[in-house]
């Protein structure tokens, strides 16, 4: 019995998607996602047609998103979620929707009032990682995937400090 429990525990390690790392995601370059809803108003429950859950619930994806968020200078307008030139991302007010596919579309298509379009410049997987991080800023993703620290100690962020 004891041995059985140990084997079951060992097997469950393989099931830990939260820590999985996908280095060769495809397809590489992002184009506007199909079936994006432009409004949060819709009949029934929210839809996630593009299967972004794998990124939302993956800790590495979120921390990679954080790195890209700083590297692609999202931080220049949105600060670390508090906003500035661009709207705040941590305040739970979403002009263009808070669902993953809506944020994906916002990043890829760009939005009026100054949000650039990153379509064709960032890979699909990178956009999804950014989405995962942006949603973590808004505390919309499972708490156990929020980045508790960054590998880069030079930059602290609200989420990075575990607040």
């Amino acid at each position, binding site marked *: 019995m004891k041995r059985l429990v140990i084997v079951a525990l060992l097997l469950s390690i393989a099931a830990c998607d939260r820590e999985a790392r996908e*280095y*060769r995601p*495809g397809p*590489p370059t992002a184009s506007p996602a199909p079936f994006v809803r432009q409004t949060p108003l819709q009949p029934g429950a929210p839809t996630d047609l593009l299967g972004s859950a794998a990124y939302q619930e993956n800790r590495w994806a979120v921390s990679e998103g954080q790195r890209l968020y700083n590297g692609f200078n999202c931080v220049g307008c949105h600060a670390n979620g508090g906003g500035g030139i661009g709207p705040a991302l941590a305040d739970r007010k979403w002009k263009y929707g808070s669902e993953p596919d809506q944020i994906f579309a916002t990043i890829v298509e760009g939005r009026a009032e100054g949000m650039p379009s990153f379509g*064709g410049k960032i*890979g699909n*997987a990178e956009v999804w990682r950014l989405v995962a991080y942006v949603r973590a800023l808004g505390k919309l993703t499972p708490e156990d995937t929020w980045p508790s620290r960054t*590998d880069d*100690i*030079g930059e602290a962020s609200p989420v990075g400090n575990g607040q």
Partner: protein
Amino acid sequence: MTDAFGRQAALIERLWWPTLWVLTAIYIAVMIALAYAMLRRRHVDEVKSEVRTARWVGAAIAGTVVILFAYFISDLFTARAIAGIERKDGVTIEVTGLQWWWRVEYSDSVPERRLTTANEIHIPVGRPVRIITSSADVIHSFWIRELHGKRDLIPGDKSEFWLRADSAGVFRGQCAEFCGLEHAKMALVVVAEPEAQFQAWYDRQLSAARVPPVAVTRADSLIRSGHDVFVTKACVMCHTIRGTTAGSSIGPDLTHLASRRMIAAGTRTNTRGNLAGWVVDPQGIKPGALMPPNNLTPAELEALISFLESLK
């Protein structure tokens, strides 16, 4: 036997080899003593045996103290000699370790003569070089075996040391502190060359990339459209090529990529095929590297590689 191209490495080598032999001798002696202790018969005369054991242990401790003291002294003098190289008229290079490559910045009191490059360091022979180290993510270690010992790169902490190459050569530097998945593929090329050659290299590196404004020949039009691919596709998000609109600093500066001997931090030689393979599928060469795969048509790829190869 000597691999040293500078006085500092020679000093380290002079200390290192005798240390290896002394420690090897001690190890063998200890193993012999251990084997003897296991195999010998119990003595009848316990008191006499005790006295003899105490004498041996005393001798071993005395020997250890003498050897340690000798090394303490020689280590002190070696370290002083290493740190004591002349520090006048030096070249200052800031080296930053990142997962998994090296950012290299040459300082100069004239701002327009500051130079940013990556993964390849050129130094003049006979002139002291001041290396300022830091890390952007985790702990790395900067190690050029032929010139100096290892130096840890600690995030959030700048430190500096001096080195000097006394004869010309091309060396492989290596990250010497485990820093993640691709630690083994985090190398750099160090070129020690005569002053005149170094200055010529430096001046060439300072120049911006030249993109043919009007495509007259077929080669020019390839380079021109390769440039267009670079600045309109994903490359531009992370890399800088001075002289173009690409100016991001997440990834290595590529302004003079074609002048470098290796790509991907010493992972592959800088050939057309390797470059194309790297651009399309970096994860196949260096899994976990932060460069994503790129989806380019064959025509786009050919043009892009021609452009990258023109960055002499």
